[in-house]
C-alpha cells in the first residue's frame, strides 16, 4: 500500500498488511469471534457510544487538556510544544480510556469475571477500577519484578478489590504476565473477558484498543485547531505495546503533513542487549496471538528485554505499528533509561508535570527533534501518564542527585 491511498486497517481478516491476525489456540477462537461481532455491532450503536461518552466525561474526566508548555518551549527556543494531558485521566494514565470501553463490552458479552495483565500497573489499576465501578470480579496478572518496582500500584489494585497474581515464569515482567493471562483465558473463557491493555494480541484486540484510545487524537486535533488554526507538525508518543501512541496517531494517519514519531525504550543502550526497542531492532515474528515485530534470538525464542519503565518492558509491539513502520507513515526512534530519567526531571522542573517513566521516553526525544524544528512549527507530546507510581524507581536511580 502507499501512503497516498486512504488508510483502512485492519482488513476483514484482522490483518494490518502482513501483521496482526489470530495466532491463538483453538479454544479462544469462539470468544474472539463473539468479541468481534459484538464490538462491530456496538461501534455504531448510539446508546452504547453515548454511555461510553458519558463515562469518559463524568468518570474519566475527559476531554483532557492540551497544555501549551511555555517554559519547555522557551528552553528549546524552537517549535511550540503542546502536551496532551492523559496524565490527568482518572487513575493517572490513558489506560482508563480503553478499560471503560472494554468493561461495557464485557457486560454486553455477559461475562462475569475480568482478567488483565499489567506491567507498570497502570492498566491493572484501570481495570481494577472499572471492575469496582461495575461490580465484576477482577484478577490481574503481574510479573514478580514489576510487583517489586510498582508497589504503589499493586497496593492500589488490592484496595480496589482486585486479586493480583504474581507471575514467576520467564523474565517475570509484562511478557510473562501476558502469557499467564492468556492461559487463564484459555481455561476460563466461558465466563471471563480478558481486558488487554494495549494494541497487541489477536484480532480484534489491536483494533478495539486503538479505537477506544483514538479519543486522544480526536481531542488533540480539535484542540490544536482551536488554538492554532492548523495541525501540528510533529506528534510524539512513547511505544511499548503502543496504545497511547496509536490513540494519538490514528486520527492523524491520513494527515500526511503531520510527522508521527514513536519512541521506544533503548534501556542501557541499543548495543547493550538490554533494551526493548522492538521496531528499531526486532524482526517480524509470531507472538501472543499476533504477527508483529519481535525481539528474538537466532532460534526464534522471545528475548528477555529491559527498560527502566515497566510499561515499555515488552519484546513485542502492536501489529499496526509494524505496518506503520513498514509503510514509513510513522518513524520510530529510541532513547535510553538515562535519557528518560533526565527528561523526567526536565519536565518536572520546567512545567510542574511529573511524567511516568514511559512517557518520559517521548519527552526525552525532544532533545533530538527540537533542533530540527523551526519557531513556526508545532510539536505535540502525548503525556500518557503521571509519574507518581515511579517514584520508588526514580529515588533508587537518581535520588541522591536531587536530595
Amino acid at each position, binding site marked *: 500500500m502507499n501512503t497516498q491511498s486512504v488508510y483502512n486497517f485492519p482488513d476483514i481478516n484482522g490483518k494490518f498488511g502482513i501483521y496482526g491476525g489470530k495466532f*491463538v489456540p*483453538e479454544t479462544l477462537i469462539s470468544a474472539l469471534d463473539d468479541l468481534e461481532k459484538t464490538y462491530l455491532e456496538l461501534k455504531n450503536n448510539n446508546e452504547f457510544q453515548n454511555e461510553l461518552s458519558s463515562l469518559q466525561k463524568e468518570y474519566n474526566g475527559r476531554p483532557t487538556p492540551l497544555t501549551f508548555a511555555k517554559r519547555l518551549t522557551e528552553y528549546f527556543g524552537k517549535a511550540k510544544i503542546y502536551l496532551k494531558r492523559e496524565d490527568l485521566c482518572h487513575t493517572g494514565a490513558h489506560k482508563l480510556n480503553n478499560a471503560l470501553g472494554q468493561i461495557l463490552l464485557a457486560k454486553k458479552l455477559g461475562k462475569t469475571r475480568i482478567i488483565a495483565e499489567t506491567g507498570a500497573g497502570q492498566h491493572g489499576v484501570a481495570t481494577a477500577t472499572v471492575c469496582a465501578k461495575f461490580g465484576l470480579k477482577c484478577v490481574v496478572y503481574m510479573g514478580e519484578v514489576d510487583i517489586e518496582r510498582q508497589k504503589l500500584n499493586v497496593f492500589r489494585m488490592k484496595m480496589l478489590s482486585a486479586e493480583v497474581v504474581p507471575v514467576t515464569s520467564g523474565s517475570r515482567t509484562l511478557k510473562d504476565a501476558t502469557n499467564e493471562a492468556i*492461559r487463564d483465558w*484459555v*481455561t476460563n473463557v466461558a465466563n471471563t473477558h480478558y481486558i488487554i491493555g494495549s494494541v497487541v494480541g489477536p484480532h480484534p484486540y489491536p483494533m478495539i484498543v486503538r479505537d477506544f484510545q483514538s479519543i486522544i487524537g480526536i481531542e488533540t486535533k480539535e484542540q490544536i485547531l482551536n488554538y492554532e488554526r492548523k495541525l501540528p507538525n510533529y506528534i510524539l508518543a512513547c511505544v511499548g505495546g503502543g496504545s497511547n501512541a496509536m490513540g494519538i496517531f490514528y486520527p492523524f494517519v491520513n494527515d500526511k503533513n503531520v510527522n508521527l514519531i514513536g519512541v521506544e525504550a533503548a534501556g542501557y543502550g541499543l548495543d547493550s542487549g538490554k533494551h526493548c526497542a522492538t521496531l528499531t531492532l526486532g524482526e517480524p515474528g509470531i507472538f501472543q496471538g499476533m504477527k508483529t515485530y519481535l525481539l528474538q534470538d537466532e532460534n526464534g525464542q522471545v528475548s528477555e528485554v529491559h527498560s527502566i519503565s515497566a510499561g515499555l518492558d515488552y519484546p513485542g509491539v502492536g501489529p499496526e505499528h509494524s505496518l506503520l513502520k513498514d509503510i514509513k507513515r510513522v518513524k520510530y526512534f529510541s532513547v535510553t533509561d538515562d535519557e528518560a530519567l533526565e527528561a523526567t526531571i526536565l519536565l518536572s522542573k520546567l512545567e510542574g508535570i511529573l511524567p511516568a517513566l514511559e512517557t518520559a521516553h517521548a519527552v526525552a526525544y525532544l532533545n533530538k527533534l527540537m533542533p530540527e524544528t523551526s519557531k513556526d512549527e508545532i510539536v505535540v507530546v502525548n503525556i500518557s501518564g503521571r509519574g507518581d507510581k515511579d517514584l520508588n524507581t526514580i529515588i533508587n536511580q537518581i535520588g541522591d542527585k536531587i536530595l
Partner: protein
Amino acid sequence: MTKISEFIQKINQSNKKALSIFLTAGFPSKENFVDIALSIVENGADMLEIGIPFSDPLADGPTIQFSSQMSLKNGVSLKDVFNYCEKIKSKTEKPLILMGYANPILKFGIKNFCNNALHSGVSGLIVPDVPLEEYESFYDNEFKNFEKILLTTPTSSDKRIQEIDQKSEGFVYCVSVTGTTGTRNNFDENVITNLKRTYSLVSKNKMLIGFGISKPDDIKKFSPYCDGVIVGSAVIKKLRETEDIKEVVNFVKSLHDAC
C-alpha cells in the same frame, strides 16, 4: 488415507486405541533424550509427538512449560530436534510428529524447516497457535509433504469441527477440556458429552483425544469416543520425578494396556 491414519487404522483393527506420547525434545537431558524416547516407543507408545521447546508456550500448563524452559536452558535448538528425530526414526517405523509454536519455525525459515523435518523422518506437524483462520497464511506450499494436524476444543462449533476435519490430515486432535495442557484430577460429564459430539462430527479423519489424560482409568473412560489418546504432561512429570527410566517405561506400559 494418510500414512499416520493408516497406522492408527491398523491399531484400531486389532481392537486397540492408538497411544501417542508427547515428549519435550531434550528433556530431561540433551544426552539421553533419544534413549528415553526409544524406550518409550519400544514399550507401548504407538507414536511420538516431539515438542519443540519455546520460550512462550501459550497452550501449555506448568509441567510442559518447565520442561520447555529446562530444554532451552540446556541449549536445545531446532537442529538438535531434527537430530533426535533422525536417530529415533532410524530405529523405528512408528510415526514421528513435531509439535511446535509458530515463531521458532518461522525464524528457522519455512523451507529450511520443512527440508530438515522431512530428512529427519517426521510425518506430521501440530502448531497450536495456528488455527483455521491462519492456516493459509502459515502453511504454504513447502508444507505439502506433511500431515498437518489441527485441533478441536470444547468451544469449537459443530460447523467448525467439520471444517477442521476437512483441513486436517493424519488425525484430528480433540482437546478434551478448555485450558492448558496438564493432568486433571477428574473430568465432568460435559467432557464426555463434548467428546461424543466431536467424534460424531469427525468423519474424514481418525480422532485422538489429548489434554489432561494422566492415567489408565482416564483412557478407559474416553476410549469409546476416540481412535486414540495423547499423553504428555503425565509422562514428563514422571521423567521429572524419577531418574529410573524403568518407572517411566512401566507407566507407559500401563497406559498402553488401557488402550
